[in-house]
């Protein structure tokens, strides 16, 4: 059950139960043993919503590519998947301020046989292939770094990419450092390259920071959520929650705390 198309008002939740979409991706959002949503993004969203007086939200676990469509189609009221804020997405949905930033990394077979460093390795060697999950920012990162179209293999979900890497079908898998570290911890025979900030062809670094997604017509709710989120950013709650998950450093959260969503709008 959820609001009637942007009907959530600023006066707090009155125990209303919202539906939140999360991606099936460690450590941002996934499902634990008991079937409850877990990961730092759901945790933060829970905290914010309970402070606002909403009831314990319901979570829908979907593949990453279904998040924006589901939000737009009102399948859920917000997205809590650590989704990176970027221009293309801002045209479709609106974001809260970021609560974490992270570096990018690549998962490669153990020993890194192809000596992969970052996307530029692929731009230089057209024999190598790289896995991206469709709908993620990494698709754009890779293209902007000059990686050839034939080298980029699209997959519908995170798990599929790693399986392909394990099976030797691709040479590397893209992802945030946190995801990459989380995934290689659960699998054998993989390692992560040194984390890096992605660069476009001109060599400019981009800011990979993630926040919470809302429908474009849901501004009131977003503002309400954002206000509470900022309180938690200031009193260190987000820091506590996020760094309790493996793969995140204090610096990641601190960097985000200095930014607002406006910094991502040109």
């Amino acid at each position, binding site marked *: 059950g959820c609001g009637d198309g942007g009907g959530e008002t600023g006066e707090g939740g009155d125990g209303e139960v919202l539906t939140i979409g999360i991606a099936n991706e460690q450590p941002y959002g996934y499902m634990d043993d008991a079937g409850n949503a877990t990961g730092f993004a759901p945790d933060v969203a829970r905290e914010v919503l309970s402070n606002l007086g909403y009831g314990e939200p319901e979570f829908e676990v979907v593949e990453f590519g279904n998040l924006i469509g589901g939000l737009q189609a009102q399948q859920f009221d917000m997205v809590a998947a650590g989704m990176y804020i970027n221009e293309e997405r801002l045209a479709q949905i609106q974001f809260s301020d970021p609560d974490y930033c992270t570096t990018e990394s690549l998962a490669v077979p153990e020993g890194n046989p192809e000596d992969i460093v970052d996307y530029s390795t692929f731009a230089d060697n057209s024999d190598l292939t790289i896995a991206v999950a469709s709908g993620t920012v990494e698709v754009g990162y890779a293209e902007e770094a000059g990686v050839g179209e034939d080298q980029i293999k*699209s997959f519908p979900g995170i798990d599929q990419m790693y399986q392909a890497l394990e099976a030797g*079908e691709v040479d590397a898998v893209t992802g945030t450092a946190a995801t990459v570290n989380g995934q290689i911890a659960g699998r054998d025979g993989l390692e992560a390259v040194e984390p890096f900030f992605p660069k476009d062809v001109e060599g400019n670094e981009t800011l990979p920071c993630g926040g919470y997604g809302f429908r474009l017509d849901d501004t009131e709710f977003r503002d309400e959520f954002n206000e509470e989120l900022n309180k938690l950013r200031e009193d260190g709650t987000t820091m506590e929650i996020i760094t309790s998950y493996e793969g995140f450093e204090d610096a990641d959260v601190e960097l985000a705390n200095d930014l607002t969503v406006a910094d991502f709008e040109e």
Partner: protein
Amino acid sequence: MTQTTAHSEPVVEEFRPHRRWFQRPDVLTPLILTSVGFALLIGAVSVPANYRTEMDAPPGDVSFDWMFFFHMVPLMVQGVLVLAKATVLGFTVAIVLGFAMALGRRTKLRWVSWPSALVIEFIRSTPLLVQLFFWQALFRSVEGISLTPVEILTLGLGIHYATYCSEAYRAGINSVDKGQWEAATALNLGPVTKWTRVIIPQAVPNVLPALGNYLVAAFKDAPLGVAVNVHGLLFFADQVRAETFRATEPYLLAGVGFLLVSLPAAWLVRQLEKRISYERV
């Protein structure tokens, strides 16, 4: 046939064997044409790495855009061709494997027929989608086997539809009149002659339409390949959606592309059925 000289009677006619369905041009021509089409499909279609629209749709605006719609047609055709290729390959597997399954189920050896029946029933009543995931996971967990997504879809479709084909074979064989088996025994025909000259020729006309229908059905299931990353029709639509955040045009186009293939195919199968049905009188 050579002219007979041994008999002097004028009544002796030239021996003209009856032209069966596989000797008739009106049945054969479409079959050969289709086969050539299939061969071209298998040989010439390559799997594209990506489906990129050159045209960006206006952001935030969800109203239907015809320009955008038509712009994607070439991409959609690519996606359909990839699926058609996987379907044809997969169905080839199904036809052969299905025959083995049908024989396995028919045999009098209980320890063969019983497990065969169970396996057929199991595969038939579980979703192809889960089967595809299963085959992918299974083959990835085996050392030294590396299958492309299209190969997995081919295999998955093949095994899934083999069970349907086996049922069609069984029905076809059972539809041959009991008297035909008895006549074959009374003429002391060996098992090979009995099957190849008496039973199978009579079963085929009953089986072909069913197989044709299953071929169409297999094509309808082929988009599921997207789950194992086959770059087919649904992958095309998904990718366009992920990149342009527009869902309406690509999915509707996928539907149109589908009907453009499956409706004529179903019609062709019905024609084939009509043509061959005359054999049954």
